[in-house]
């Protein structure tokens, strides 16, 4: 059974479709793996054993009755706890929603179920997706499978850790400023933030509505593309959903796997190469290697400048908190979740204030207050208004750069995985993790992170991510270039996840079969 947790999603689905294994066997193998390793990793807030086995049985029944199965039918998936799931607890990592059972499914939950994908449970995250280490969860600290003393990135750190630890071959995360790409980078897996509007936000617990975007994690680019294809598509329940069909990202990933980038122009973003310092040497060394690999694949490498990217951090940390202060006003102690101090003598306003004080953690409170400040009369123009103008300038920088290059590249994060507790007391030290991922968030453009090497300057060898950014609705370019790079990396170095140490009682990474 240990072998089943090593397979790619594509291979797992193929074996189930061919009757070589059953969806129930696959689900059970992953549930066993979670039982065996999650004491160490702590990726899951809730494991739905019965629901997973029932979904798997339904896939096996359909196969036996000769029904056609989708390309991911029977493949297990870990769902970030920010996505609502009917009948399953959904907390968004917050005490204010402890015990809440949603009465409906998010659109992406429905799509996952309809594809025959087997949801194993809900993964840990920074509270309301605010953070870059998953340490802001109100429930537990998720550990990086590469080194259990380190963070798995965030905010989708439960999802990234689950995939890297072979608890699930696929996971869903959400990315507001880098919360899919950065955790993928620091756990050595693939994560893609789709074009804003490509994947429905209906049923995502909102943090920053103009930035939030759900997307896929996988151990291979092809697996990630297969899940992307399931998630993407127009949804009338989300007014910002793009009404036209997106590109065929699976075909793009398969084209990329042929490892030929002849004629592709790749732009290095000067502002994201650490010229002003602040990037780890090991990250920059891996990035330089990656550039050489891309050139060897036939790509033309050009240098592009995006001068306003230097203001992305400031713009993001005004826009996201502003939208969060408005979105989180819904937690009013009336319709769902916690209510504190309702002793019959207190007013609604007092109960609301006591509930929010008790239910929210420090980072959420900080962001709500920053947002309240930035939106207040007299400061609105100088802060929120100015940030929105900078957003226009950043989008303009992207547009100009995409005139010179088909895709843009940078490290995904300036740092490899850091130690638990290292940055948690200093909000700005945490925020700079997102330096490279914020521009694509603000412009709504797609970006993928693929593993591009190991850095041992912080101690043990830890994974580094390569970010590949593309124009709006050209997500296929991320997958094509990502798959080509992955093929070259694999040929030269073998599977990167072979470096994950043994977890639980079953060895992982010993034979390193990510394919």
């Amino acid at each position: 059974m240990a072998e089943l947790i090593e397979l790619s999603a594509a291979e797992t689905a193929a074996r189930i479709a061919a009757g070589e294994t059953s969806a129930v066997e696959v689900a059970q193998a992953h549930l066993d793996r979670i039982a065996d390793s999650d004491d160490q990793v702590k990726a899951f807030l809730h494991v739905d054993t019965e629901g997973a086995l029932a979904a798997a049985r339904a896939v096996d029944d359909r196969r036996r009755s000769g029904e056609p199965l989708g390309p991911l039918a029977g493949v297990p998936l870990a769902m970030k706890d920010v996505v609502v799931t009917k009948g399953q607890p959904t907390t968004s990592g917050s005490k204010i929603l402890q015990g809440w059972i949603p009465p409906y499914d998010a659109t992406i939950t429905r799509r996952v179920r309809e594809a025959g994908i087997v949801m194993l449970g809900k993964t840990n995250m920074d509270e309301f997706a605010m953070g870059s280490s998953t340490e802001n969860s109100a429930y537990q600290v998720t550990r990086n499978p590469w080194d259990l003393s380190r963070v798995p990135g965030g905010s989708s750190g439960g999802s990234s850790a689950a995939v890297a630890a072979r608890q699930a071959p696929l996971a869903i995360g959400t990315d507001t400023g880098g919360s899919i790409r950065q955790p993928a980078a620091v756990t050595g897996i693939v994560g893609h933030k789709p074009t804003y509007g490509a994947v429905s936000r209906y049923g995502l617990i909102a943090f920053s509505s103009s930035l939030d975007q759900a997307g896929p994690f996988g151990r291979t680019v092809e697996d990630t593309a297969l899940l992307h294809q399931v998630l993407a598509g127009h949804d009338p329940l989300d007014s910002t959903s793009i009404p036209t069909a997106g590109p065929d990202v699976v075909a793009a990933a398969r084209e990329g796997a042929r490892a030929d980038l002849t004629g592709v122009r790749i732009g290095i973003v000067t502002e994201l190469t650490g010229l002003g310092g602040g990037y780890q040497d090991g990250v920059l060394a891996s990035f330089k290697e990656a550039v050489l690999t891309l050139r060897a694949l036939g790509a033309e490498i050009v240098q592009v400048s995006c001068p306003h990217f230097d203001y992305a951090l400031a713009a993001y940390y005004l826009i996201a908190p502003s939208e969060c202060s408005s979105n989180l006003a819904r937690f009013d102690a009336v319709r769902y979740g916690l209510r504190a101090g309702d002793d019959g003598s207190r007013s609604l306003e007092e109960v609301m204030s006591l509930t929010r004080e008790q239910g929210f953690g420090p980072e959420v409170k900080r962001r709500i207050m920053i947002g309240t400040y930035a939106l207040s009369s007299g400061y609105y123009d100088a802060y929120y208004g100015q940030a929105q103008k900078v957003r226009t300038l950043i989008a303009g920088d992207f547009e100009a750069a995409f005139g010179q290059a088909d895709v843009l590249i940078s490290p995904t994060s300036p740092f490899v995985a850091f130690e638990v507790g290292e940055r948690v007391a200093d909000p700005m030290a945490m925020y700079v993790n997102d330096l490279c991922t914020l521009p694509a968030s603000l412009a709504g453009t797609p970006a993928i992170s693929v593993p591009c090497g190991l850095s041992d300057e912080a101690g043990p060898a830890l994974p580094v991510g390569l970010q590949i950014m593309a124009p709006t609705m050209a997500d296929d370019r991320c997958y094509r270039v990502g798959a080509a790079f992955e093929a070259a990396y694999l040929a030269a170095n073998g599977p990167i996840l072979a470096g994950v140490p043994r977890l639980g009682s079953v060895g992982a990474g010993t034979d390193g079969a990510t394919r």
Partner: protein
Amino acid sequence: MSDDRSTLTRDEVAHLARLARLAVTEEELDLFAGQLEVILGSVARIGDVAAADIRPTTHAVPLQNVARPDVVLPSLPREAVLAGAPAVEDDRFRVPQILGEEE
């Protein structure tokens, strides 16, 4: 509030917390005043960008007048919605008193 955009007093943090309906503790006021000042100091450079005649971007993908077909869809069952509420009375959300608040 203070005229200097990058400083934030303890009283101002208390005011923000009240606006945001957060009953913060005295210790939190001390902690947050320092932290918010650092954060605001770091984002204040947004003002350095010459953007006076630039249009603001509210959403990455411009969309106009998005409307669904005017079709009646079933609502969630009342019991399912009320099941998640902190307090329910007579098939309704029970709300603490709202009158007598200062506004």
